[in-house]
């Protein structure tokens, strides 16, 4: 790698590739369609509400607070990685070049959020305030400038304080920004400019403070890891993210269930698989998600045939995905050495999947109660699941 500019560009390409890869799945998944409907319905409601909104509605305060809070969240995207604390150490003094690239990306990747929220609120401003179009767009520009200051400010704060008490910093910035927007919305441009000057000073204080400080690699790397993790976790709702090791939760409120697997050699694998299913978020939420969809359709769709088809399809999907997830065995596990019959794991998975599917059948059956022949949904879930389990490898 020749210089830090190249380091940044190769990181950036990799990052964009990664985001694109999962975005495809997100936008082709079933939840994307739900989102489109939700946005459509929300937009319609909003436009209807604008027709009847009272002129004393406190739009300025509301918008100032919302935009102020959104502006304050300006987490820097540095794309730093763990090995950088060692390998980039000799380049410490030249890192400002890298960070200016990183901050430019941080700004452009986040500014659209406040921009959209502000643009959406313009019809409301037109309805309840007397602001002219020019004034409204001047405040839009003010928002963009504040976003730039916020990105710089949060970065400098995190740099100089190593991320300690970043919430206090965010709160202070949110208050200053909200004040600036509020003044702007009341056409007090002079006061708005004063608020901007305050935020510039605030930013400069921490920027000065961070001069000469070593790069807080540990903090920035952790920040990056958290950000990628939350992205992967989000993407995981739509598709299987390979390097996401499902997070584990105890769910102790379900501990009583384990009593159904009594102590004994023949139950060793069942003991393990049962806990793996309940405590691994991936497996557990897979079941919750598909069961919930099936149950909602059963409860609210009045055409029995449709609920049966959905119940069958989702029973198939749940069974096959759960079975594959619980059987997958890439890595070495201690139970591979246990003196148990070869098929013990398979048998245990089969039984736990059956248990999960009986529970799904009960939930769906109960939700279909109001319909004639509601028990058919119950039977369909069970039969399809058993067939899937038998036929699949």
């Amino acid at each position, binding site marked *: 790698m020749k210089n830090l500019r190249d380091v940044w560009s190769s990181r950036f390409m990799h990052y964009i590739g990664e985001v694109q890869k999962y975005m495809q799945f997100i936008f082709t998944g079933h939840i994307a369609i739900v989102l489109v409907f939700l946005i459509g319905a929300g937009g319609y409601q909003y436009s209807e509400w604008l027709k009847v909104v009272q002129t004393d509605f406190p739009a300025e305060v509301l918008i100032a607070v919302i935009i102020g809070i959104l502006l304050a969240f300006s987490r820097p995207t540095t794309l730093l990685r763990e090995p950088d604390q060692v390998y980039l150490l000799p380049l410490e003094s030249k890192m400002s070049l890298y960070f200016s690239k990183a901050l430019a990306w941080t700004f452009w990747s986040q500014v659209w959020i406040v921009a959209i929220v502000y643009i959406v609120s313009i019809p409301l401003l037109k309805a309840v305030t007397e602001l002219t179009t020019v004034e409204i767009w001047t405040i839009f520009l003010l928002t963009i400038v504040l976003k730039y200051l916020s990105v710089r400010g949060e970065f400098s704060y995190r740099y100089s304080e190593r991320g300690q008490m970043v919430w206090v910093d965010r709160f202070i910035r949110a208050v200053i920004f909200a004040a600036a927007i509020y003044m702007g919305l009341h056409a007090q441009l002079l006061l708005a400019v004063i608020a901007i000057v305050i935020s510039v000073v605030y930013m400069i204080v921490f920027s000065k403070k961070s001069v000469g400080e070593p790069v807080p690699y540990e903090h920035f790397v952790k920040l990056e890891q958290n950000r990628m993790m939350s992205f992967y976790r989000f993407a995981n709702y739509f598709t299987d993210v390979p390097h996401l*090791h499902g997070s*584990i939760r*105890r769910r102790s409120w379900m501990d009583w269930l384990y009593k159904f697997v009594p*102590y*004994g*050699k023949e*139950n*060793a694998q069942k*003991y*393990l698989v049962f*806990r*793996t299913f309940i*405590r*691994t978020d991936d497996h557990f939420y897979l079941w919750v998600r598909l069961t919930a969809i099936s149950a909602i359709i059963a409860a609210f769709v009045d055409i029995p045939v449709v609920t049966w088809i959905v119940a069958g399809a989702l029973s198939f999907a749940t069974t096959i995905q759960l079975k594959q997830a619980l059987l997958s065995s890439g890595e*070495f*596990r*201690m*139970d*591979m*050495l*246990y*003196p*148990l019959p*070869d098929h013990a794991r398979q048998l245990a998975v089969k039984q736990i999947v059956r248990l999960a599917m009986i529970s799904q059948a009960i939930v769906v059956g109960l939700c279909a109660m109001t319909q004639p022949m509601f028990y058919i949904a119950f039977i369909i879930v069970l039969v399809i699941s058993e067939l899937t389990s038998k036929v699949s490898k």
Partner: protein
Amino acid sequence: MSVLEVQHVTGGYTRKPVIKDLSFTIGKGELVGLIGLNGAGKSTTIKHIIGTMLPKEGDIRLNGVTLKEDTDKYRTAFSYIPETPVLYDELTLREHLELTAMAYGIDKATLDARSEVLLKEFRMEKRLNWFPSHFSKGMRQKVMIMCAFLVNPSLYIIDEPFVGLDPLGIQSLLDQMDEKKKEGASILMSTHILSTAEKHCDRIILLHEGRVRAQGTMADLRQSFAMPYATLDDLYIAMTKERDHEELA
């Protein structure tokens, strides 16, 4: 009678074998050290013994049977402590012990009695309901050690046991090993900590480039290298140099 018999075993990941015509035995109540450089074939040897890799040639017998002849008997005969702890993220410490006991057919009363002793020895009594994600490397290692000793098998296979353990943990492990030896169990231990190996092992197997270069007691080894006052470190260095010379010649 030998607990473990490795006879003319050749094996590895690809066509090129990592271990070549390996033969050694471990008798009842013996602590045997498996010593070698990185890449000498220690881990591969262990993988063959625990049965996650199968030999291309040769036989491995545990208590007289091969894995194929009697899987259950073979697997019950040993417990294994891997170099890197392998734990279930979704199980607590208590559940790790319980699962191991269930799998090896140990009844509840024995489990309770044995785990009480082990938990005290390794100072983990207060962490019974913790998940592995909250454990340090040393604690994870201790979980593996406790699970292995809970089983009480004829043979313990221990891969690099001292890395990551604190001094008290190392002492507890050595004490446990000593106790099990007295009860008649055998131990195969691979390690780089040669001074500890020299002090505690009854016999040493020196592995070099997939072959057994020398094996026996410290006295045997000193004799075969003609270095009467040598430590194991000296012998080890001599062995690697000797091979380098041969390769150059």
